[in-house]
């Protein structure tokens, strides 16, 4: 009898393990880490909720190149960032059955395959700390007889891939438990190289333009282990490396409406990435390698237009800033690869358009050379609301110091959080062509929170 139970369990686990252990396929294929992923740069801007459209320093090269025209001195701007990222995942004690042929999704289904097993509510936590160079920018004002013409060149790491995730799940039965544990580790960043110009069109209007080149690498590592009743052990590891190369440009205006108000507008053209992906994966069943693959693919990603606006109000020693930008992420597209282009239809069912807004304030104590800043930001996740438990938002604060007449030191603290859910394929059935027919998914809720520190110093010659 005991032998029969072991045999049944073994058969069941084989069915589980034949599948790729990953998020639901239709999501996985269009999940883009670069979408709606703004890390931020410039401690002054980040201390004010990330409102940077009308902030005037070297980071204007990336926020609003028109404001380069307001920088009268040769400036070297350098910044560091530190992030403490935490992810708490919880696996709901139900499964979701997804029928791919009929595109029918049902929740709370227990497959006969899992008869006798009861999923248990379980959670796991993982965290990661990273310190990176955040920005290095040089601005060079050209001597003018009237107006202003300023060039800027530099780099920033505005998109960050440092993330972690841990999955812990167990199925309980009278015979024992099935225990699954997964660890996801991601690292890397996109470096945005920029060269731009800001020029006065009138005493109160400045125009700016910048060209950006993006380079970067995304390392993805997934380790998964499953163990049950000493009957079977299974291990899987995926290592995926994506190399990005892309470019786009931004055009912007900065306008002084009156003595108190300034307005900034910017348009960022679609960003086209060329992606080279290498991956290796292996699967071990009871210590025996059952799969050891290497793959390579190339494709393009086209990110949509970004329309931005910002307003700044100056009252004596106080400045208030508000920014927004609009991006329709459902216009994200794959290209230059037929297989990937097939997924474009799924993009529309996964992504949506979002408006980010940031609000911040600064108060200056002139005699002390000190600025105190605080802000709030709302940065909605670019995915459909059914995948979102709580949208991304947070608060910020910071300090700025003007040393002598030539140097600023700014520090910012940012706290943000969001909650989302996703499917995790636990078991699936495939046809002869290796196409997924149906799957039983776990529903994983993630609570993500992060604390970021930014330190930026600028020296004006």
């Amino acid at each position, binding site marked *: 009898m005991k032998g029969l139970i072991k045999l049944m369990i073994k058969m069941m686990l084989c069915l589980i393990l034949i599948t790729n252990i990953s998020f639901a396929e239709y999501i996985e294929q269009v999940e883009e880490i670069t979408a709606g992923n703004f890390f931020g740069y410039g401690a002054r801007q980040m201390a004010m909720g990330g409102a940077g459209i009308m902030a*005037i320093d070297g980071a204007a090269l990336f926020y609003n190149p028109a404001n380069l025209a307001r920088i*009268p*001195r*040769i400036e070297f701007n350098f910044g560091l960032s530190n992030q403490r990222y935490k992810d708490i995942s919880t696996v709901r004690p139900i499964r979701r059955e997804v029928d791919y042929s009929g595109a029918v999704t049902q929740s709370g289904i227990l497959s006969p395959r899992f008869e006798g097993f009861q999923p248990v509510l379980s959670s796991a936590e993982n965290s990661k700390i990273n310190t990176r160079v955040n920005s290095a920018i040089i601005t060079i*004002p*050209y*001597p*003018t*007889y*009237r*107006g*202003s*013409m300023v060039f800027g060149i530099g780099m920033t790491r505005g998109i960050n891939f440092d993330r972690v995730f841990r999955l812990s799940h167990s199925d309980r039965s009278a015979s024992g438990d099935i225990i699954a544990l997964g660890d996801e580790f991601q690292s890397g960043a996109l470096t945005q190289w920029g060269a731009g*110009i800001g*020029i*006065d*069109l*009138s*005493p*109160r209007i400045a*125009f700016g*333009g910048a*060209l950006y080149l993006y380079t970067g690498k995304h390392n993805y590592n997934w380790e998964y282990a499953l163990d049950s009743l000493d009957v079977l052990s299974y291990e899987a590891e995926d290592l995926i490396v994506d190399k990005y190369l892309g*470019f786009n*440009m931004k*055009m912007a205006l900065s306008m*002084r409406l009156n*003595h108190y108000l*300034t307005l900034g507008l910017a348009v960022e*053209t679609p960003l*086209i990435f060329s992606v080279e992906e290498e991956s290796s994966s292996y699967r071990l069943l009871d210590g025996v390698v059952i799969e050891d693959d290497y793959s390579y693919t190339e494709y393009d990603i086209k990110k949509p237009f970004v329309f931005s606006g910002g307003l700044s109000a*100056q009252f*004596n*020693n106080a400045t208030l800033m508000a920014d927004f930008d609009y991006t329709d992420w459902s216009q994200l597209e794959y290209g230059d690869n037929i297989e990937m282009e097939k997924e474009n239809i799924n993009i529309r069912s996964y992504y949506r358009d979002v408006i980010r807004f940031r609000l911040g304030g600064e108060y*200056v104590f*002139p*005699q002390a*050379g000190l600025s105190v800043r605080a802000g709030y930001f709302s940065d909605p996740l670019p995915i459909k609301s059914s995948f979102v438990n709580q949208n991304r938002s947070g608060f910020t604060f910071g300090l700025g110091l*003007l040393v*002598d*007449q*030539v140097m*600023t030191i700014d520090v910012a603290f940012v706290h943000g959080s969001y909650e989302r859910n996703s499917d995790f394929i636990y078991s699936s059935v495939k046809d002869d062509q290796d196409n997924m027919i149906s799957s039983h998914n776990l529903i994983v809720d993630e609570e993500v929170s992060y604390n970021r520190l930014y330190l930026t110093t600028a020296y*004006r*010659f």
Partner: protein
Amino acid sequence: MSRLFFISIAICFLALLTSGCYTILQHPSSEANYTAENYQADCLECHADYHEYPYGYFYGQYPDYWWSTPRWGRYYAYPWWWDNYWYDGSYRHTRDYSDDEPSPRSTRGKKVERRDVLRPPYSVGTTNLSRSGSSGNVGTSGSTEKPSDQNKQPVDNPDNTKTKEKIDKKEKKDNKKATRRGGRR
């Protein structure tokens, strides 16, 4: 193809904006006999609204504390190519004294200004430079005299000779400054 299109559009747009726009890199050429001293020694001679929109930079929107706490103004408002005019003090010693000739010393008057406040260039001795929307003097005490004061003869001063010498030196200083600022002779 689309990349090329975007770049072409951007270049054309930039070219249109920069041709004949507000920003001017050099002073427009004047009559042949109109020298640097003429138009740079005192911009107000040609540009009556110089104090409202000073050539070189528009400064009317700056916060009030930038004027009262000069380090803020210097950091955010002063173009680097103005600096030798006010910051490093070189404008105070424009005359080339030989080694044998002692530098002039005076036991009269106020001490030399430190860290002067915001003031547009080429306007020494000009006055009532008002910020937009206000009518206060821009400079410190050293810059509040009126242009006509330069030519006013002191009446009650017992030492008229010294005063004249000072005025002569000031004129020479202004000429040298104008030359140093790139004016053509």
